[in-house]
């Protein structure tokens, strides 16, 4: 018992429900969700959108994307708040214990925890080197290494560090971006020029909406890692929606306005030109710090779900692998990241399909077929009860939905038919329900193996 209590200091209830007294209010939820998933990534994405659309089209693309993401994020967020468990522990219900472990490891530990963590740490080194080109401490490799260590330390502490960083970073970002936009607009000829500016490389509206959704859909689907700490389910929905309809459009449209006026897609470079020196450094340093803390946090939660090692130790193992990778790229000149980025992007494309199966289990199968009406109990684990090791229906739905999503995003299958990630999610959602009906009607067993939950922590 004492051992378990000790483990919880930095373990963040990785393999159990978050107790009620450890949950947070809506203000914390809003700041942590917005700080974690927003910040710098949105600015850079706005930069890319601004080079392809005019301002009016951008508003349509961003609002459409925000509506889709608000719905998806609210649904996953509410699952996290009801269940109190991380995304990957929750996955044990639609995919079985080993299904959830393996999917969590493949889709999050490998992609987000190691892959994107390493890419972002390397990128941190690149940006630091651009700002201070003559110092060995700020060479790409060295900065990637010390940056990686910095990110590991905050991830080791866990949710409390994420909250702390969000309190400091989010309002600061809003202020700095607002100032950057106003300065840029004033210097380049006013709002009329923003509204009439022509994009450098025009893209279709559908591609822009796809990009807007694609940027955030992974964050939307792993929102339970954060929302499991929400005091009430409605706090999770309200804070995510507020984030999607206020904060996200503000940051992305601000970045688009700057790019349309200046013509350069790297938003922080434009802000540097405007004389926002230390402000830009703060945006990059703190923005990348929090985004990589979230990458590693989710990676460590999924690794813990896979191996049963405590979450703090998982963050060290996964973080050190990612940092070594980033340092290697930094020190070995000429290394191309493109093949690696393509690999983790394709693997990450399976994530929306996993989300579809989770929605189907929580919102349809569990209340309608298993008759678990109380949403607090749908993804909970009761001591003494047995759960499946593998859920064949869940795995099949992800495989088929995910394959469709990958083929569509590569342009091989129905390239102009809606948004690939959303299609994958819907296909997996429908398939999961259909297959359960078919397997039940044919009296075919789809839940294989059995493990008994004896209480305390899951194994």
């Amino acid at each position, binding site marked *: 018992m004492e051992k378990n209590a000790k483990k919880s200091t930095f373990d963040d209830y990785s393999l159990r429900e978050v107790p009620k007294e450890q949950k*947070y209010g809506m203000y*914390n939820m809003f700041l942590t969700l917005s700080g974690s998933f927003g910040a710098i990534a949105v600015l850079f994405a706005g930069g890319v959108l601004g080079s392809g659309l005019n301002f009016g089209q951008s508003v349509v693309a961003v609002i459409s994307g925000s509506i889709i993401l608000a719905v998806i994020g609210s649904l996953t967020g509410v699952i996290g708040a009801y269940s109190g468990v991380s995304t990957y522990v929750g996955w044990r219900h639609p995919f079985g214990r080993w299904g959830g472990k393996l999917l969590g490891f493949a889709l999050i530990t490998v992609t987000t925890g190691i892959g994107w963590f390493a890419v972002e740490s390397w990128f941190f080194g690149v940006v630091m080197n651009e700002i201070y080109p003559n110092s060995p401490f700020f060479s790409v490799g060295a900065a990637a290494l010390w940056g990686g260590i910095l990110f590991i330390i905050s991830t080791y502490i866990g949710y409390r560090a994420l909250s*702390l960083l969000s309190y400091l970073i989010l309002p600061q970002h809003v202020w700095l971006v607002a100032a950057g936009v106003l300065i840029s607009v004033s210097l380049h000829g006013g709002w009329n020029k923003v509204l009439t500016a022509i994009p450098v490389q025009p893209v279709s509206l559908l591609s822009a909406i796809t990009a807007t959704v694609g940027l955030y859909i992974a964050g939307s689907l792993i929102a339970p890692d954060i929302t499991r700490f929400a005091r009430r389910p409605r706090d999770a929905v309200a804070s995510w929606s507020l984030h999607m309809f206020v904060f996200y459009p503000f940051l992305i449209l601000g970045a688009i306005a700057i790019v349309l006026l200046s013509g350069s897609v790297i938003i922080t470079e434009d802000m540097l030109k405007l004389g926002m*020196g230390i*402000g830009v450094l703060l945006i990059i340093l703190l923005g990348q710090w929090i985004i990589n803390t979230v990458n590693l946090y989710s990676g460590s939660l999924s690794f813990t779900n896979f191996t049963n090692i405590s979450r703090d130790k998982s963050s060290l193992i996964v973080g050190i692998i990612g940092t070594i990778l980033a340092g290697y790229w930094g020190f070995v000149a000429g290394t191309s990241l493109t093949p690696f980025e393509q690999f983790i992007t394709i693997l990450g494309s399976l994530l929306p399909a996993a989300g579809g199966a989770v929605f189907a289990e929580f919102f349809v199968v569990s209340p309608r077929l298993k008759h678990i009406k109380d949403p607090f109990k749908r993804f909970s684990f009761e001591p003494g009860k047995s759960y499946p090791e593998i859920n064949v229906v869940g795995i099949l739905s992800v495989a088929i939905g995910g394959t469709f999503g990958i083929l569509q995003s590569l342009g091989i299958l129905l390239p102009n038919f809606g948004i690939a990630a959303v299609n994958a999610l819907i296909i997996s959602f429908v398939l999961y329900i259909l297959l359960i009906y078919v397997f039940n009607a044919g009296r075919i067993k789809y839940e294989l193996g059995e493990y008994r939950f004896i209480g305390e922590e899951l194994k």
Partner: protein
Amino acid sequence: MTTTLPHLRMGLYYSILQIILSLVLIPTSFFTSNAYSGYHNLALGIFLLITGLLGSFFSTKRDEHKLIADAWLIISITTAFLSIDISSFFASEYQPLGLASASLLTLVWVSLLYVAYTRRVSIVRI
């Protein structure tokens, strides 16, 4: 019997100090020769005035968490102000006043968070 917790009382003192500084800062916005600097000071002045009033209200309501939330907001915004106000773009005759006010406020609210932390109030649980 109700007793005022030390950090709540400190919160009240800090809020009053903040309101005074904001009332000094706001008029400078109208006299500066640099319009951008004027807008920047005006925005900070109004923000400090509103959060100062909120802070003094919460410090009388025994609502530690709202006061802590206020403290984080002020530290975050004033450090953002400090980081870009030093650029030549915002240069004006009142720049030293803005920078001094923002620095002072950041420091006093950091000390409030420290006192709250030593009193075992969670400064992240808001």
